[in-house]
């Protein structure tokens, strides 16, 4: 054991300024404790509240719409009109689901990610895209038509988002052809090691925050201890290790318009590991 002597390296004279700086960091941190200490908890609490609100309020919306229609249509002609309206909306909805199916068959990779994301919500909806949309921006779904958006923003197999879709599409944030600056944007997240199945894939999906339309689904391969993953070592309890996920947008080759986006990290079993929001500026 003593054949090599690394005393100089072992007994480094660490400058006092290093120690002072390390001690100063918590001081700075304590000045803004909300941002640093409770950030993750606040996000998760808000997310839980949103889900609870959506679950509680969505039956009310449906109930109200059913109540209003019969009252508004007292005479038979109006009733037939309303029934016709129902039928037309039904067929429109069917057309929409057909459209989404077509879209999904065109982009099978996205479908698989979508399934992963919406495994829990698929029971109540036929279209995974719709379910996904509800999950991202549940309160805004009736106004926007996110189903049409995927066709407008096709993603190539490399994951990069192609420029604008068909003419007339105005849902995308920012001006047409004007892409935001992705430098310095790193999508980050935390999860427990037990949520990852071995050295596998983590999927990173990005959605427009306002419309909820899927913008990009990427296959973020995260071998442990390598490029995009970082594990804080806790040897006593392997399953409880904190895993840091990150995806550097700068190197992703994506073209995103300025605006707000939501991203998800999902593991191979479809379990959502982490979600948060980021903004792209000009």
């Amino acid at each position, binding site marked *: 054991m003593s054949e090599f*002597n*690394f005393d100089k390296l*072992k007994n480094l004279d660490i400058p006092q300024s290093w120690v002072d700086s390390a001690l100063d960091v*918590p001081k700075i941190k304590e000045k803004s404790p909300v941002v640093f200490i409770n950030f993750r908890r606040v996000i998760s609490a808000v997310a839980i509240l949103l889900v609870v609100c959506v679950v509680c309020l969505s039956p009310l919306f449906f109930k109200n719409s059913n109540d209003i229609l019969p009252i508004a249509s007292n005479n038979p002609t109006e009733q037939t009109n309303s029934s016709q309206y129902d039928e037309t909306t039904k067929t429109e909805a069917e057309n929409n689901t057909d459209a989404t199916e077509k879209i999904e068959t065109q982009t099978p990779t996205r479908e698989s990610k979508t399934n992963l994301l919406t495994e829990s919500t698929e029971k109540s909806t036929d279209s995974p895209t719709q379910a996904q949309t509800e999950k991202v921006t549940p309160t805004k779904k009736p106004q926007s038509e996110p189903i049409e958006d995927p066709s407008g923003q096709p993603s190539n197999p490399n994951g990069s988002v192609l420029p604008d879709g068909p003419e007339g599409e105005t849902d995308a944030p920012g001006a047409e052809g004007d892409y935001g600056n992705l430098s310095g944007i790193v999508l980050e997240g935390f999860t427990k090691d037990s949520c990852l199945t071995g050295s596998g894939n983590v999927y990173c999906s990005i959605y427009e925050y306002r419309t909820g339309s899927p913008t990009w689904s990427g296959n973020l391969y995260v071998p442990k201890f390598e490029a995009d993953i970082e594990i804080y070592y806790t040897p006593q309890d392997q399953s409880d290790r904190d895993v840091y996920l990150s995806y550097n947008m700068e190197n992703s080759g994506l073209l995103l318009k300025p605006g707000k986006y939501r991203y998800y990290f999902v593991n191979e079993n479809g379990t959502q590991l982490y979600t948060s929001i980021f903004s792209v500026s000009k």
Partner: protein
Amino acid sequence: MGDAVFLGLSYEQVINKYKNTVGAVCLMRLKNWADAEDCFQNTFFKLYRNAPDFNDEAHLKAWLIRVAINECNKYIRKNRHHAELDKVSDGAVDFPQGKCDMSWALLNLEKKYREVLYLHYAEDYKINEIAQILDKSPNTIKTLLRRGKEKLKKLYGGDGE
């Protein structure tokens, strides 16, 4: 400063106790004082922010080493488009060549050998412990250790044990 306590040690005491270990790991990885300082600070900041529950001091030390390595890796990733850090010589750590001390030789080895040799010889970690810290198999560590020793001897000019 914060009142965080880790196994009965205050944050400041932890820094003073493990500054050499963390500093050496960062320097070994980055070979540059300025870069190492950033990672040094980030490592202790993460300790403060995450405040994990440690079972004993060995656990704490291993955690710090692991996080320091992670921080260095992250730093290299972020700066890889600027320059390969290993190739940067200006401002790099420079130990004078000495007969007894081989720190200078260690820093001139390939990165994969540096950590293993340092943890084994300077921090007195056993092969299984190094394997746990670096998340590699013990056999890999054994191989790295053996080859690293050979390379170190060649660099040092020695002819064996």
